[in-house]
Structure formats: C-alpha cells, structure tokens
C-alpha cells in the first residue's frame, strides 16, 4: 500500500478517535448535569410541590408559587415526612379521613426505579432462586443457581455440577404448566436484601408470561395469562411489603402496568401515564399510602405525575424541559459532530455519531482560515489542510497535527 494511502487512512482514523476523545475530555472538564427539581404530591394541598432542601427558609414551593417553611413542609407532606413527624410527635391520626399508623405507612411506601439500560444489557444467563417462604427471618442464599434456556437446570455451586433431581422437578412443573421452551427472558430481583422473594417472571417461547418461584423447596409455576391483555416487553420485579403486586410490566405499546395478585390470579392494572418508551425513558416511582409520585425522564425533559394509589389514575402532572448542560453548549460551539461509545440507554458499546448543530461550523471556518493563512505549505497543501479542517473541525485539526507534514513540510511529498 502506498504511503499516501496509509497517510490518509491514519488521518481519518485519528480524526475518528479525536472526535471521540476530545469531546469526552471537554465534557469531563465542563460537565455539570442540570438538576431536575424534586417534586412531590401533597396529600393536603392536592397539588404538586417543588421541594428544594437547599433553601433552608422555604424549602417548599407549590406550582402556583406559594412558599412554605420547613415545619410547614413537613406537615404538608405527611406521607413523605412521616418519620420526621413521628419523632416530632406531630403525625396526624388521619389523612383524608383514612386512619394512619406508622406500620401502615411503612408497608405502603415504596421506591421503584427503572433504567432502560436494563433492556439493552448483555445477560449472564444465570439466576438465583431464593426460597420464597424461608423458615427463618430473612432471605437465605441457596447453594445453587439456575439457567433457563432450552430447559431449566440447577447448578450446585460447591461442585459446579447440575443438580439433576431438582432440575427435573422444576422441568416437570414447567412442562406441566405448559411452559414452552426455549425461554425468551426471565426477570427477577436477585438482591437478597428484601423481605420476601417472588422468584421470576419468565416469558416463554409462545409469549406467555410465567411466574416461577420456589415454595418450601418445591416448584411453583403459573401462567399469568397476561398475554390476553398485552404484549409483554419487560418485567421488573419489586417486592413491596404490602404484597399488593409483584412488579411492573411494560407492554410493547408503551403501556405500563403493575401486576397485581388477587385471588390467586394475576391482574395487570395500567398506570394512567402517556406512552412510555421502555427502551429509552427512565422511570422513578415513589409510592405512599395515597399517591404515587411518578417521574418519567426522556431525553427532552422530565414529566411528573401523581397517581392515586388505589386506582392508579392520574390526579396531577407537570413537565420540565431538560435543564441546559454547559458541556453541551460548549460542544455545540466547538465540535460540529462527535462520537460516543457509551450511551445512557444501552450497556452495549458501539460508536454513535452525534451532530451538534450549526454553530460549530463557524469555528471550523475560522480554524480553516487561520490554518490557510498561518501554516506554511504549498498551495495544494494549504487547500487540502483547510478544507479538511472545514469538514472535520477540531478533530481534523488534531489529526493533522498528530501526523507529520503539517507544520514541517517536506517539499517533495
């Protein structure tokens, strides 16, 4: 291969890595994530309130602009601040006519976080199945892990051998309940720090969602039959102490449900939210006895919703556009485009090209002009260098700098 060809290939390659490394560096140097406000639904004001604990005088502001002091804030948000109110001895007996007790509040409080990265992550293919009714308090580590693909197999950790007897038992239970192999996905919560374990929800080959758990060492397998209502995309387990539901179910149409357990059957109950993109958006739910505070973060901004806990219908909402990030503003001025290998919605690495808007082209023109004027060279070289910078910008400039024959010329080249 000719030297000139390699020179051009190296130039393009270095431009590529500079288009990744330089913006990454500039971002690291200037990145300041825009803070979204913390918004919570006041069960007394019946209104979404912005809470800013940095403001010691008046941490609470309603959307209509009314400000409240810290003590007022505690009282106006009793379901959020019940621990504080309890220690102050100010916990009311009833809210909205419902008698409240600390144990009730505790059992109804939950936090759920969903990150779309979970949908685009490589899966290990091994799962931990805890005993869902442990004899003693707390979850105990089992001595084995299982894989669920073409069949179910339990592998004993100490010996790294398949536990054929247990595997056969579960395989039989799955077969008997009509589970069709190979499995598409299985989702559970392997974190042992929880009160109880509900095992796994697994989508079989036929698109049926099965509930698989271990009760007293024996398999428990049920077809949830949710496919009659929706086309499941993902499931995210959440073991709340009131045991009202198993977790959150995301449909392919952007619908979000909780999977409720009632009379030994599984009922998907929809959350009253606009379509949710489970492959892109983040979801945080802070639930209490009366209301669920839902925030949905999309690349454009964050939407806040308050849902009634009992029916999951929407009672209030608010939208905030994404606060500006200084690193992005800088990037828009100096990098006409950039590459990233990571992204917030996928654990997979691959190059992603971002076009940063028109201003950076002004920088390109300026840089190209400076190079054309000040960097010595033949007419042809100057034309090449400045047009390359015009197209590739600072990344192209660095690539030219990194290779010979830019500043120091070889007249015979």
């Amino acid at each position, binding site marked *: 291969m000719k030297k000139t060809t390699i020179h051009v290939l190296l130039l393009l390659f270095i431009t590529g*890595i500079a288009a990744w490394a330089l913006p990454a560096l500039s971002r690291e140097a200037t990145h300041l994530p825009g803070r979204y406000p913390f918004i919570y639904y006041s069960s007394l004001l019946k209104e979404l309130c912005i809470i800013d604990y940095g403001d010691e005088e008046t941490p609470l502001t309603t959307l209509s602009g009314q400000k409240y002091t810290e003590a007022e804030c505690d009282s106006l948000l009793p379901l959020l601040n019940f621990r504080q109110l309890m220690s102050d001895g100010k916990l009311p007996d009833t809210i909205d006519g419902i008698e409240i007790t600390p144990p009730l509040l505790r059992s109804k409080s939950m936090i759920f976080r969903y990150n779309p990265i979970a949908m685009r992550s490589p899966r290990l293919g091994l799962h931990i199945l805890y005993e869902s009714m442990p004899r003693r308090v707390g979850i105990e580590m089992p001595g084995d892990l299982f*894989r669920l693909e073409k069949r179910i197999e339990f592998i004993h*950790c100490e010996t790294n051998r398949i536990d054929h007897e247990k595997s056969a038992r579960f395989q039989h239970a799955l077969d008997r309940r009509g589970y069709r192999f190979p499995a598409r996905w299985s989702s559970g919560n392997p974190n042992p720090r929880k009160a109880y374990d509900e095992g796994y929800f697994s989508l079989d080959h036929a698109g049926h969602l099965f509930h698989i758990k271990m009760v007293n060492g024996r398999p428990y397998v049920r077809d949830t039959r949710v496919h009659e209502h929706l086309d499941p995309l993902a499931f995210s387990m959440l073991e709340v102490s009131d045991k009202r539901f198993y977790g959150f179910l995301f449909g392919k149409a952007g619908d979000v449900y909780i999977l409720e357990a009632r009379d030994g059957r599984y009922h998907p109950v929809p959350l009253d939210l606009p379509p949710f993109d489970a492959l892109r958006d983040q979801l945080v739910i802070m639930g209490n006895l009366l209301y669920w505070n839902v925030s949905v973060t999309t690349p454009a901004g964050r939407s806040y919703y308050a849902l009634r806990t009992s029916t999951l219908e929407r009672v209030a909402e608010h939208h905030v556009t994404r606060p500006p990030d200084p690193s992005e503003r800088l990037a828009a001025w100096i990098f006409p485009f950039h590459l990233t290998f990571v992204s917030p919605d996928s654990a997979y690495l691959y190059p992603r090209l971002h076009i940063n808007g028109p201003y950076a082209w002004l920088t390109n023109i300026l840089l190209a002009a400076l190079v054309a004027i000040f960097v010595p060279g033949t007419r042809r070289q100057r034309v090449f260098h400045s047009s390359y910078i015009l197209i590739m910008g600072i990344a192209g400039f660095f690539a030219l700098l990194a290779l010979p024959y830019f500043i120091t010329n070889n007249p015979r080249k």
Partner: protein
Amino acid sequence: MTRAICYKEWIKTRRVFLLSALLFAGYIIYAFIHTGHLFRVEGAVATWAGMILKQTFLLPTMLRWLPLVVGILVSLAQFVPEMTEKRLKLTLHLPMPGHRILIVMLLHGIALLLALYLLSALLLARGLACYYPREILAALAWQALPWFIAGIPGYLFTAWACIEPTWKQRVPNALVAVVSLSACYLDAQPGSYLAFLPCLALVVLIAFLAPFYSIARFKEGIQ
C-alpha cells in the same frame, strides 16, 4: 527467506518470549490460588453470586494489563535492535521486497503473542471450568477479551513508534496509540464489547498499516 526472517526475529524475541510465557504462567498459577482462596474464604455461593449481583471480576485484575505489557515487550525486543545503529537498513537491503520483510516481522510477533494468549486463555478456561459454569466462564472471557485484543494493536503501535525515525513524531504516535488502546479499557459489563468488536478490528487493521508508514518515512531518510 521468510523462514530466515522468522529465524532472526526469533533470536531477538526468544528471551522476551520466555519471560512473557513465565509472566503468563505465573498469572495462571496465581489465578488458581486466588480462585481457591475465594472459594475457601467467601464460599462458592457468594463467589458465584458476586458475579451475578455485583459483576465482580473473579480473576486477579492484573489480567487487564498483562497482554498489553507483553505485546509492548515483544515489539520492543523486535524493533529496538532494528533501530539501534539503524540496522533496519541491513534488513531492508535483504533481497526481498521491503513490505514483505515487514509483513513477516509483524506476523512473527503477532503469532508469538497469539500463541501466548490462546494458550493462556485455554489453560485458564480448562482450569476454571472446574469451578464455574459455562455462563460465568463466558462472562469472564467477555471481560478479558478486549484486554487480550489490546495486546495486538499495542504491539503494532509500539512498532509504529519504534520504526518512526524522529523522536518528535514518536510522541504524537504514542499519544494516538494510548487513546486508541483506551478503547479496549472502557468500563463495561461482560459482553458489552460484542457490538464494538468491528471497531477493535478497525484499530487492529490501522495499527497493522501504521508501521508501514514509519518504514516509508525511514526510507525517505527523514531525520
């Protein structure tokens, strides 16, 4: 003639090759001691679960740098003697097309590295298969794969910088090499590199071409 070039490269690299083999052997032995320790102290269940819950890397972490260090060492052993007293002039004067001489030299180095890497990976996999199921082995392989891949462009970029005739140009070459190689060391879950492999292949390809660029400069007599 190809064999003669390989003979020369072997004479230059045999000591470093032996040293590298010892490094890998030492690592493998330590990896088994480490695994045994984990199983005794933490217990098998906690060790397996650590991989699932926290994605801990179950092997001693110096595996991150070992293939790269070995790649650089082999490259230095091959190309520093060529550049001392400009012996490369003698090499390129051999009655063989210059680019073929360099191809044979580079392939010799790559072959040594691949032999070391594959053998070590195989030994590790065979041994660890007693402790871990195939899913964990696959995850470990995925974690270590980009580090092993880094050894090859590491080797080639070192050759690029070595053969480059001026110190002034070696600095940017090294910088480009460091930035390119850092693409093999991104924080990632096991398997995250799946879609990135074509990019790493591109890095290897460019790194393979780069020494030819230095040779061309060397033959122009740039100082």
